[in-house]
């Protein structure tokens, strides 16, 4: 698809996010903590309001009017996620409580002792067993470390770690050396939440598949910034944290290749995930219900559907009236291309201004980064930076970002992290830098 190159003014989109008008201690809020959670557009807030006022009912159960509306909205959201990820089927989209639960689901189901019997007669069940190896990287979030640690311990498998360079990039040579026929799973983050590095997933998946290993891609930070195509990446599993993609908290997505999801045993037992139940034997429901025991987060999922609608609108807005026939998928691809460029501009400007301040160090200098500026200042601890910036209305994150092993690798106890969304402004990047300059003066 060819597009007319132009640069629409992203700042007009701020009006879609009512919370951005917040005044903090007399200062206009500068929300630079988007990697922790994104703000929600009015379209999502309205969808939630409409749901609670006019659509609330349990899904996949009732024959009544409200239940049918709720079910149809809920199911429509699944198709929207399929479009977002370019999955082959909406049955490959499983709703969870969050990205952490998505990873826990896979780690549990791949190491479940009962797996062979419980799979509705499937011949081969993918599983991780004693003596097998699980590979993760140094830059993983705790939620892509701990579930694998627990799983490895459960079955007697070994967890191995792919090192990173000083610039914050995966050491691909070391990765190649660690892969072997013992490797059963590679768990890798698509975009690092602490460094912003975008990892070469497609290449890493290909390398893993060459030794017969499955790959789970933690897409928590990629979801808000990149156009994702799970078929092109050939990822076996891909996880999303939906509250980072402008949707409500409490919803996550697990994408899994159909054959794998069909072969793995269920995760939790309960309502919705069964076909028939007797005290002697239970048979399980087809995908995706098999992995969705109990009443799901109906409102949250409908809110997620609205967030994806918003992103498709953004793509159409960006292109303008010249392409009236764009599909939703095309609109989303355009939207994420534009978002990624806009956020890179903001983050690059923030980095440039911060580096003018003596004593500032930026963690992660990979050429391909996604909207994240993680930094330290020689004279002030990240927490002091966070508190002082907050007094200027600037919201950033300070701490280890749930990446303690990575902090050890970087040799810092914590960092300050400014993370940008498309609705941030150059002025906010400047306010960040001038705030840090003030801290430098105060602490020197």
């Amino acid at each position, binding site marked *: 698809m060819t597009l007319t190159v132009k640069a629409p003014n992203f700042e007009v989109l701020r009006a879609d996010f009512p919370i951005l008008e917040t005044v903090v*201690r007399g200062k206009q809020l500068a929300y630079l903590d988007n990697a922790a959670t994104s703000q929600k557009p009015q379209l999502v807030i309205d969808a939630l309001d409409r749901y609670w006022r006019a659509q609330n009912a349990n899904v996949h159960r009732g024959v009544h009017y409200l239940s049918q509306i709720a079910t149809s909205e809920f199911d429509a959201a699944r198709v929207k996620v399929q479009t977002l990820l370019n999955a082959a089927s909406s049955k490959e989209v499983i709703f969870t409580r969050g990205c952490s639960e998505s990873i826990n689901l896979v780690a549990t189901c791949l190491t479940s002792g009962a797996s062979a019997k419980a799979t509705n007669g499937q011949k081969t069940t993918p599983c991780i067993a004693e003596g097998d190896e699980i590979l993760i990287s140094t830059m993983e979030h705790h939620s892509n470390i701990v579930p694998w640690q627990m799983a490895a311990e459960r079955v007697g498998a070994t967890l191995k770690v792919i090192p990173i360079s000083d610039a914050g990039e995966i050491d691909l040579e070391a990765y190649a050396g660690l892969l072997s026929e013992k490797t059963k799973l590679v768990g890798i983050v698509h975009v690092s939440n602490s460094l912003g590095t975008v990892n070469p997933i497609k290449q890493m998946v290909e390398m893993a598949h060459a030794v017969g290993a499955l790959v789970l891609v933690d897409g928590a930070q990629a979801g808000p910034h990149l156009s994702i195509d799970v078929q092109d990446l050939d990822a076996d599993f891909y996880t999303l944290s939906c509250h980072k993609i402008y949707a409500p908290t409490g919803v996550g997505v697990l994408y899994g290749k159909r054959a794998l999801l069909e072969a793995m045993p269920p995760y939790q037992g309960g309502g919705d995930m069964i076909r028939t139940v007797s005290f002697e034997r239970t048979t399980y429901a087809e995908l995706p219900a098999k992995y969705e025991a109990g009443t799901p987060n109906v409102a949250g999922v409908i809110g997620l559907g609205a967030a994806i609608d918003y992103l498709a609108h953004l793509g159409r807005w960006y292109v303008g009236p010249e392409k009236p026939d764009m599909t939703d998928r095309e609109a989303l691809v355009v939207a994420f291309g534009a978002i990624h460029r806009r956020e890179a501009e903001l983050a690059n400007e923030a980095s440039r201004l911060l580096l003018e301040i003596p004593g500032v160090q930026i963690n992660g200098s990979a050429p391909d980064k996604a909207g994240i500026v993680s930094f330290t200042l020689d004279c*002030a601890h*990240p927490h002091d930076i966070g*508190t002082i910036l907050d*007094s200027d209305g600037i919201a950033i994150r300070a701490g280890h970002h749930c990446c303690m092993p990575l902090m050890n690798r970087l040799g810092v106890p914590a960092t300050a992290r400014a993370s940008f969304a498309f609705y941030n402004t150059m002025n906010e990047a400047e306010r960040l830098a001038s705030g840090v300059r003030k801290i430098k003066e105060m602490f020197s």
Partner: protein
Amino acid sequence: MSLDLRELYQEVILDHNKRPRNHGRIEGAARTAEGHNPLCGDNVRVYISTEDGKMTDVRFEGSGCAISTASASLMTEAVKGKSFEEAEAIFKEFQQMVTTTGEAVPHPDLGDLEVFAGVREYPVRIKCATLPWHTFRAALQGEEEAVSTE
């Protein structure tokens, strides 16, 4: 900078952050303990030398924010030469000062430690100020397990 913030980052705190007093370890210390704040990654180790029920030397090392570093530094100054009971009384008053909400009341007995009065306006930072104290008390009580704020 806002007035509130000056209240938190008083000159004394900035000074003790920059030049912490009694910083370092005591080899063969009679008592020692370690403390962590898992939420932010702050950690501190406190060393105590004792003689006849008094603390002849108190030192600390570790990494943390200005509030926790200055708190550790000022704490060592406040308890050095004191008995365990006297130190406990100072801790009680200090803790009350940083955790009591409402109108500020003077704490003349605390001396320099009174600079931490502003911390009570910043609930997430109270643990930064109290971590060195909890670690100090663990050392006195001979607790082997590292102290955690969570």
